[in-house]
């Protein structure tokens, strides 16, 4: 064994060396993380999460944490179907709803059934998987697009069914039967109970969902590294090649569908028990879009990614409910976006300064010209609210001008994506100001609509800017 000759150091560059060293340091941290076994990493996260209800006394925050876990479970299941197997399943929420309604029917006074959880949940999970196979069957020979439209229609059909199945006359039966409670849903659903132990509190449900989460993550992790998981990935990359290699493509699609449906069904049972009731509106298309946004933001195909996506989106949407924190999120997002994309810093300083000056000037001018029309108060108040009160024009009657400004904002943003160079830099300031105007005057007052608009816009923007999401693989093909 010969020792390598000492590095002569010819053609070395100080700057390059420094960059390489920095990169190596980052890589070493990554390696350290990678050396930790997966179970260890999961354990760390779960241990940190398990401490949450102990540290935090507010039941509201624990409730948000439970919702986040439920969303994370849903996102994991959808990731299996979309991210791994590459099937566009738009009926995913219907399986979630099926699980929730089944649990509610088997453990409430609707039919005076009160099954033990240990019996009902496995049955529901199996039934959800079976339903998934049934829905996947008609489109098994067809292309992904047909699957998408069929499953989307299935989601709609499910909502129609449960909102109207409250006065059905079964053949051979006298009088109408109330199956699902119609639009009023089913209330007074039993808690999850094993023997004499029942989960009563939000904290209890937090630990229950955490346990289910760990089990699902572990199962999915081993599934992903199994023969089936590899087969799904090859199916996603190139279905034709997969078929040529002798893979049972149709069967693989159906199993992916069934697994996704089973996870959704399982999550549905937790949701029904947690909410102590189920309503048709819980399972509408906005939920579907939200889960898709989580999967896409985190990066379809990456388990860590979709869980992070679920946490981010659910927490942000939760914060948007109250005006003052919502305002902080808005300005923080604008600042972060500028910091990330604006280079060099000279230009960033110019744009920021220009925007602030533009706003102050516009505010001064408009309040001077029309003092009666600009007597709006910042919703929610707070320090930032008072600060922006001197910058953003707050209208006394914001509805119509707010709507017009919203339309103009959409147009300008679309226009911004088409121009480059100095014009773009010049236009960014006024656009931010217009966005702030729309935000303060119109969106803050309508958090429920604003949330949905943001989710929709996020999907479109992500697909255009970074389709792989934060941690996703570069390319996901849909068969």
């Amino acid at each position, binding site marked *: 064994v010969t020792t390598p000759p000492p590095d002569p150091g010819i053609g070395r560059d100080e700057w390059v060396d420094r960059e390489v060293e920095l990169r190596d340091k980052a890589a070493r941290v990554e390696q350290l993380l990678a050396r930790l076994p997966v179970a260890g990493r999961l354990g760390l996260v779960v241990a940190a999460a398990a401490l949450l209800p102990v540290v935090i006394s507010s039941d509201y925050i624990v409730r948000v944490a439970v919702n986040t876990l439920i969303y994370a479970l849903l996102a994991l299941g959808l990731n299996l179907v979309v991210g791994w197997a590459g099937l566009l399943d738009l009926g995913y929420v219907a399986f979630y709803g099926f699980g929730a309604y089944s649990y509610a029917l088997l453990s409430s006074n609707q039919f005076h059934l009160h099954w033990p959880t240990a019996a009902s949940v496995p049955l529901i999970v199996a039934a959800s998987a079976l339903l998934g196979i049934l829905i996947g069957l008609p489109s098994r020979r067809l292309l992904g697009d047909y699957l998408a439209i069929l499953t989307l229609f299935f989601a*709609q059909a499910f909502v129609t*069914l449960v909102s109207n199945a409250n006065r059905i006359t079964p053949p051979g039966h006298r009088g109408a039967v109330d199956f699902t409670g119609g639009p009023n849903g089913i209330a007074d659903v039993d808690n999850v109970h094993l023997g004499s132990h029942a989960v009563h509190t939000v904290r209890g449900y937090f630990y229950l969902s955490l346990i289910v989460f760990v089990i699902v993550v572990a199962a999915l992790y081993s599934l992903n590294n199994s023969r089936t998981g590899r087969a799904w990935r090859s199916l996603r990359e190139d279905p034709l090649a997969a078929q040529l290699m002798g893979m049972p493509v149709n069967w693989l699609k159906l199993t992916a569908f069934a697994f996704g449906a089973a996870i959704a069904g399982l999550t549905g049972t937790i949701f029904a028990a947690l909410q102590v009731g189920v309503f048709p509106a819980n399972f509408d*298309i906005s939920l579907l*879009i939200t889960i898709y946004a989580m999967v896409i933001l985190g990066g*379809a195909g990456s388990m860590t990614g979709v869980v992070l996506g679920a946490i981010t989106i659910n927490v942000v949407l939760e914060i948007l409910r109250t005006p003052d924190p919502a305002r902080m999120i808005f300005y923080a997002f604008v600042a972060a976006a500028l910091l990330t994309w604006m280079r060099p810093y000279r230009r960033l300083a110019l744009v920021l300064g220009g925007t602030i000056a533009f706003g102050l000037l516009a505010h001064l001018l408009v309040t001077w010209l029309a003092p009666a029309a600009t007597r709006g108060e910042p919703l929610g108040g707070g320090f930032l609210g008072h600060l922006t009160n001197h910058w953003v024009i707050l209208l006394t009657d914001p509805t119509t001008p707010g709507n017009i400004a919203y339309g103009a904002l959409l147009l300008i943003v679309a226009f911004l994506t088409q121009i480059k160079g100095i014009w773009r830099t010049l236009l960014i300031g006024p656009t931010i100001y217009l966005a702030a105007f729309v935000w303060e005057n119109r969106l803050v007052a309508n958090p429920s609509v604003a949330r949905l608009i943001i989710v929709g816009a996020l999907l479109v923007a992500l697909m*255009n800017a970074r*389709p792989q999401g934060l941690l996703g693989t570069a390319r996901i093909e849909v068969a």
Partner: protein
Amino acid sequence: MDWSKLAQLTVAGTTLGCMYALIALGYSMVYGILKLLNFAHGDVFMIGGFIGYFVYSALGGPLTPSVPVAILLMTMLVAAAVGCGLLGVAIERFGYRPLRNAPRIAPLISALGLSFLIQNSALLAFGASFRSYNTFELDNGRLFSRGIHTSLVNVSLMRLLVIAAAALLMLGLMAYIRYTAVGKASRAVAYDREAAEMMGIDVDRVIATIFFVGSALAGVAGVMFGLIFQNVYHYMGFVAGLKGFTAAVIGGIGSIPGAVLGGLFIGLAESYADGYLPQGSTFQDLWVFFILIAMMLLKPTGLLGKADIRRA
């Protein structure tokens, strides 16, 4: 057998079918060219209904129209067609064109996001309440009292107008696709985009034109929806879009006569289900869903579709 009921249901179904056919045409043409499910198409239909409503109100509404009724209706239809056509071009330009070479899931998810964005923007701007066209009051109700009234069947003038307008538009579209240069170019692009590009066809322009035409038809359908069913609301596009797409699939996606046939089929099926099945009206969506499943099992290529719909 109650012939009168059957005839009446057929009339209702044909009207509904014409609307679905107009929506299905847009889906089918876009799918034929881009192989893309344009989920936002149903929401373009909804925007059409609202544009019609606002033009209607601006021209005096049902009670005090400032122009003759014929001109009023015409203006509404044209405004909705132009407005929605431009919206369709914008959707393509900003939502789909940047993603034309992306993995196939990207434009689908972008379409989903766009649909959601448009629907909720409408909710923000127009509110959650229903807007009523109230066409019964228009022209002293003559649009509904006139028409064909026999012992067998009643067809109001409004329905006749809607059916005639839809039929005229469909014939016009077929002629447009068949005989004009742009129509021929669009068929060439649908057949083989790369080859068409090499032959000097401006593919971007053809696609934009198809989006304009398809969305304009959806806008017209939106106004017709308001004229017949009176109310327009922000979520009306979702279910109508689903059924329009089902119509396109049933007729054979990519085929223009197929889309018309599929639309009429769905409209009639829904109408008969309404009349003859127990609780047909509450479960209309379900019946159409079952038709879709049955069609996929029996003849996945649709009534007039070609055998091979595999993407290039």
